[in-house]
């Protein structure tokens, strides 16, 4: 996720420290290049001064924090769209040129289109769709995705993985999105 967490004093302080650290790095680099004596201590001191107001009065950082978040949200929105276009028109369209596995044909008059279903063991009644690869929840989406691609003969889908990973990194809550299930106590 590239957006910042909702602004509270703790996050504002962290943001302020980051700005201080980044400022210190820039100052050190500048002083080092200009040949000043002891650029490290001077840079650290200036970085500390830079982050001090935000540490003492976190609300000072509200505006830059919101501005950064807004920028990140806009970037996520546009780049997500662009990513979708690229992955569809370049990868999926190219793969689609190889044809389809689906054998669509008109059934003969006496031919049934029903696919016989396998009987499940009684103990599987709670989860009626057979899941041959039962995976622990904490494995994330990488392993299940790759395992599905290999099992189903869609190995090519593994090459979509960098795009999917980028999508997940750019995924950010929209301003009007309600959490799917607020488990809050009212």
């Amino acid at each position, binding site marked *: 996720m590239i957006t910042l967490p909702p602004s509270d004093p703790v996050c504002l302080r*962290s943001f302020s420290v980051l700005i201080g650290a980044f400022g210190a790095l820039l100052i050190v680099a500048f002083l080092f290049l200009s040949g000043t004596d002891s650029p490290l201590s001077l840079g650290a001191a200036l970085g500390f001064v830079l982050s001090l107001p935000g540490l003492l009065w976190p609300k000072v950082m509200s505006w830059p924090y919101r501005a950064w978040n807004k*920028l990140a949200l806009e970037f996520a929105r546009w780049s997500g769209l662009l990513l979708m276009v*690229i992955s569809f028109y370049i990868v999926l369209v190219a793969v689609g040129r190889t044809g389809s596995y689906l054998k669509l044909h008109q059934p003969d008059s006496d031919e049934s289109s029903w696919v016989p279903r396998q009987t499940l063991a009684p103990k599987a009644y709670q989860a009626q769709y057979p899941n041959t690869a039962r995976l622990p929840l904490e494995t994330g989406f990488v392993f299940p995705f790759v395992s599905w691609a290999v099992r189903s003969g869609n190995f090519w889908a593994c*090459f979509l993985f960098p795009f999917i990973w980028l999508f997940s990194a750019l995924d950010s809550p929209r301003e009007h999105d309600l959490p799917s299930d607020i488990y809050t106590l009212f």
Partner: protein
Amino acid sequence: MKTARAILAIISSLLGLLIVLPIAAVAVPFWAVAFLVRRCSNLFAPPSKTWESIIGFDKHVGWKPNPNLDVYCSFAVGAFRVKTDSHGWRGQEDLTGCQALVLGDSFAFGFGVDDENAFFSLTNSGLHVKAIGSPGYNMVQEVIWLDKVSTQLSGKLVVWFICLGNDLYDNLQPNMQNYRTPFVREINGTGTWEIVTTHVRPETWHYNVERDFQKTRDARSLGTFSRTFLSERVYSACEFLIEKATHICRQAGAPLVIVSIPSMSQLDADAWNHWASRIGDPKLFDRDLPDQKLQAICKKFEVMFVPGSKYLSYTDYILEDGHWNEKGHKRIAKLLSSLYQQSVLNSARTDPASHMTGLKPDQAVDLFH
């Protein structure tokens, strides 16, 4: 075909990645800042407790916040500082010295904000407010508290926050998650109700989040926002409780005002449609129904009713949590000040020598901008 596909996929994805590279390069600083802010936050965050660990068993109402607390309480977006008095209520005021008493659930508790940013600390014009509320309370528990403090209510303005998202339905439930809670029960289909507390004990109620959460959420929504048999029961029980509270306040000589607290989704058409479609057919749900019903009940008992949706907006809430943010608390503090001022004005007009006689049922509230 599989090999051809894989080869084409490799070539096209490499080409695609080349084009995507500039996007990834720009994304890195954003990602790094977000990652580091989250990591650094752990260093600055004070040690906090969950809301469950700051409440204790109470034989009358099931639970209440522990007294003399000064802790950070964790919630969806961090932690907020909670200080409680010797009775377990937040805020500096004590009940005897206050001019207005606010009764309610987590909204009255000020869930999600530090003490100094909660409505009970923000009222201007010298209004002293005491808030009696705890996370998870239903209206039954609030009526029990009102009864318990009734001897100290004379001349005080009583403002009752009714959270539309859950309070109305929860009145009929014997439990709030794992906690046993007083509830109301209809007496043998007579249409009259009684408060039940016999089951209230420290032992936990069998509640399973995975099994019960969605079921309760759906029933709560149908009981509150749709015209069903369940909602008839919900509003009948609500009427019983409002009548009881009105009686207690009249006996004590304290004007009562009921303020409805809308849930966040009620305040935005898109959010409402999104929410309703998750439960069922959006046409079944009416977001204005609770206010209409409460208005009618209050009119019947000549109690002033303030629909919170008129004074609150979507941006007054913490998106990830659903309680008021600092802006929302400021608006509520302003509303309380206005209610109190109008209550005083009214009593001066009717009988200058008397205590406050209260507000008229249909009186509009001017927020004194």
